[in-house]
């Protein structure tokens, strides 16, 4: 960035905490109200996008060190989802069965039930955050390219413009 966007940087840092809290609340209330792991992941990714846009890729990764592990996060999330879905195979049940069976007793924390679909949602959350962070990291590299490309303004006139 050639000019620091001070307001955007401050807002990015301030908004990070609340966006994580909103994401957690979406996962927690997602079984009795609107919400799921995907929406939570996108909310966190929006907070991260603000970091990337306001600070640039390298400064954002300095501010939030866990971003360097985004590919590993992504693969862990996917494997968690697949594991949760396919582990009933070990006991001969159909895949994607819930572990405390529908109707059986389940441990709860407040209104949140601790059962295997919760693990699936967490895996999905990690997957979405990881994928969108990798994407933001790749596209944030565009900054260096744009300067030496010196692309002239695109002329979309139907008769065809000319490059100056």
């Amino acid at each position, binding site marked *: 960035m050639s000019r620091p966007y001070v307001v955007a940087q401050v807002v990015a840092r301030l908004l990070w905490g609340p966006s994580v809290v909103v994401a957690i609340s979406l996962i927690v209330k997602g079984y009795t109200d609107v919400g799921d792991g995907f929406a939570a992941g996108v909310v966190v990714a929006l907070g991260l996008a603000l970091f990337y846009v306001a600070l640039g890729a390298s400064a954002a990764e300095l501010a939030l060190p866990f971003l360097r592990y985004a590919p590993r996060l992504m693969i862990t999330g996917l494997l968690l989802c697949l594991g949760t879905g396919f582990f009933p195979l070990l006991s001969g049940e159909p895949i994607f069965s819930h572990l405390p069976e529908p109707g059986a007793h389940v441990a709860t924390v407040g209104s949140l039930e601790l059962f295997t679909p919760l693990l699936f949602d967490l895996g999905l959350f990690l997957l979405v955050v990881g994928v969108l962070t990798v994407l933001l990291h*790749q596209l944030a590299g565009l900054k260096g390219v744009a300067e030496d490309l010196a692309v002239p303004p695109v002329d979309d006139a139907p008769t065809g413009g000319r490059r100056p």
Partner: protein
Amino acid sequence: MNLAFATGAAVLFGCGAYLLLHRDLFRVVGGIALISQAATLTLIASGLTRGRAPISPEPNEPVSDPVPQALALTALVIGLATLALLLALVHRLTVVLRTARHDELAAQEAQHESRLEPDRQRDRDEAT
């Protein structure tokens, strides 16, 4: 499906189709994004129902249909992933070819065609 949703989907599709026909690749990608959103809107509009959320309904209450909502959510996720892929592809194309206008890409294809010309000339010589 009522008129408002149908008009909305039609407008989205029209804008997307208009953008698709532009020369700049980023606008083409924007057009594809709008078209996929038009499909999602049609999906929601074709499954409109009134009623409570189907979590634990009373026996005689109308319940809204959860399936189109799940379909629309899945379509949105898939649209996100494909849009991300398309953007990465256009980025790579821009970097490698140093242009985002697809008539210049076509010019490079024409260069490749002209490199095939000697082979075709040999075919014609052998036939006569």
